[in-house]
């Protein structure tokens, strides 16, 4: 290849790459942020006073102001919430709003945002706020116990908080790292709060539990560990085997609880034995009965679920086959 041709090719490639990075379409992306105090319902402005313990909602607003759809908008977001990366696809005129919640539990003078779009700085804000140092008074109510110390994020969970003077609590929140999830209360009395923690709403890890009383958020001294109890990416999840013991000298029925059972066409025990649909009775998508035939060696086993497209190992739950029991 002649040198001039090579240089020309190089110029074209450079122009193409620069054209992609600095695409005029990507210049039509505009970003802005808003903070709202959920305890008062007011948006936070420069003159706002917010209290330590307030629950803040932060909105990151990304708009495509252009006339063409834009794909693969890379947004880098640094703020009180933490450092996050998003990849967005926006149609012409479309607006994407990303909501995050956080309890203000540290002294702040500024709510600051630094947002880059495709590597170019788009927004830097320093919203000056006056954080009131108040002594949180939670002596009115108290928490003595919680119903579970672990939550399986694959399923909706029934959760109870026990204590005194709980009837005036309006909401319960869980803060897992910086991520806050607010839950309405399904049922309450003076000594008990019952709520539903919907699946996949909490982040895995250790979560602080807090209560909202009289429009102020209070952390309790209780924590839960949130687990994503899955060993695969399938929609099939096995939650429980009832009972989790079978008899080697007679057929045994085990009830399986989980979800996605409608797709199951057979079950394999990890010793290789395949149980066809004749050994299964699907009661619903969440409940299935499996007949463990007699004659299998005693030991501890797990199931593999067979669907038309995949084999899903349920190694997280084991059952036992024993001799002369059940």
């Amino acid at each position: 290849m002649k040198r001039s041709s090579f240089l020309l090719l190089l110029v074209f490639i450079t122009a193409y790459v620069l054209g992609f990075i600095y695409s005029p379409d990507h210049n039509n992306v505009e970003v802005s942020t808003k903070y709202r105090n959920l305890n008062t319902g007011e948006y936070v402005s420069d003159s706002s006073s917010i209290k330590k313990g307030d629950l803040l909602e932060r909105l990151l607003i990304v708009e495509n102001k252009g006339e063409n759809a834009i794909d693969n908008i890379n947004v880098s977001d640094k703020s009180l919430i933490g450092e996050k990366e998003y990849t967005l696809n926006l149609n012409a005129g479309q607006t994407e709003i990303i909501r995050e919640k956080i309890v203000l539990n540290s002294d702040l003078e500024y709510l600051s945002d630094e947002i880059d779009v495709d590597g170019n700085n788009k927004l830097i804000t320093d919203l000056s706020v006056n954080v009131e140092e108040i002594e949180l008074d939670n002596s009115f109510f108290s928490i003595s116990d919680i119903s579970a110390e672990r939550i399986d994020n694959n399923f909706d969970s029934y959760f109870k908080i026990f204590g005194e003077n709980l009837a005036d609590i309006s909401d319960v929140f869980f803060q897992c790292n910086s991520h806050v999830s607010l839950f309405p209360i399904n049922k309450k009395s003076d000594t008990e709060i019952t709520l539903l923690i919907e699946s996949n709403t909490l982040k895995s890890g250790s979560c602080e539990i807090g209560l909202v009383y009289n429009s102020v958020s209070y952390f309790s001294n209780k924590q839960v560990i949130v687990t994503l109890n899955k060993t695969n990416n399938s929609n099939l999840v096995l939650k429980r085997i009832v009972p989790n013991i079978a008899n080697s000298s007679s057929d045994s029925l085990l009830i399986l609880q989980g979800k996605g059972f409608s797709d199951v066409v057979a079950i394999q025990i990890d010793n290789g034995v395949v149980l066809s649909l004749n050994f299964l009775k699907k009661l619903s998508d969440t409940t299935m009965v499996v007949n463990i035939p007699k004659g299998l060696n005693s030991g501890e086993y797990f199931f593999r679920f067979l669907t038309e497209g995949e084999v899903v190992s349920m190694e997280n739950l084991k059952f036992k086959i024993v001799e002369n029991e059940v």
Partner: protein
Amino acid sequence: MASIFSLLSVQVLANSPVSVSAIVGNLNKPTDIKITSPAYLDAINQTEYLESGSALTINLSFTDTDSTDLYYTITPSVGAVSEEFGGPISNSATLQFTYLSPTTVSSPNQDITIAVNDGSSVASKVIKLYIY
């Protein structure tokens, strides 16, 4: 070789009384699951209309005439229940549980599956829910 017709039909001709004895295997009767409250849910095809984000208390009774130890599961398609499983319990038991409906659902038609294992068979009942 026996004719296929002789295998299909057996005729006994006798001019005096014939005594026939048979041993009937131990036929298991599945557990009877009854919804005692709200009682109307015990009828087939009844639906409970439930607000999203609310709670419903349900009372059950399990009766089994030929088994002693029962295991049960209560599994909602969405939402959660206060009693998800238990056993062994006696063959004449009552149980109360509370169901919590979620604040949002992909479809209003949902259900709660109740299953009782008596060791030889599993009885079941499905409570239909309409969450609005």
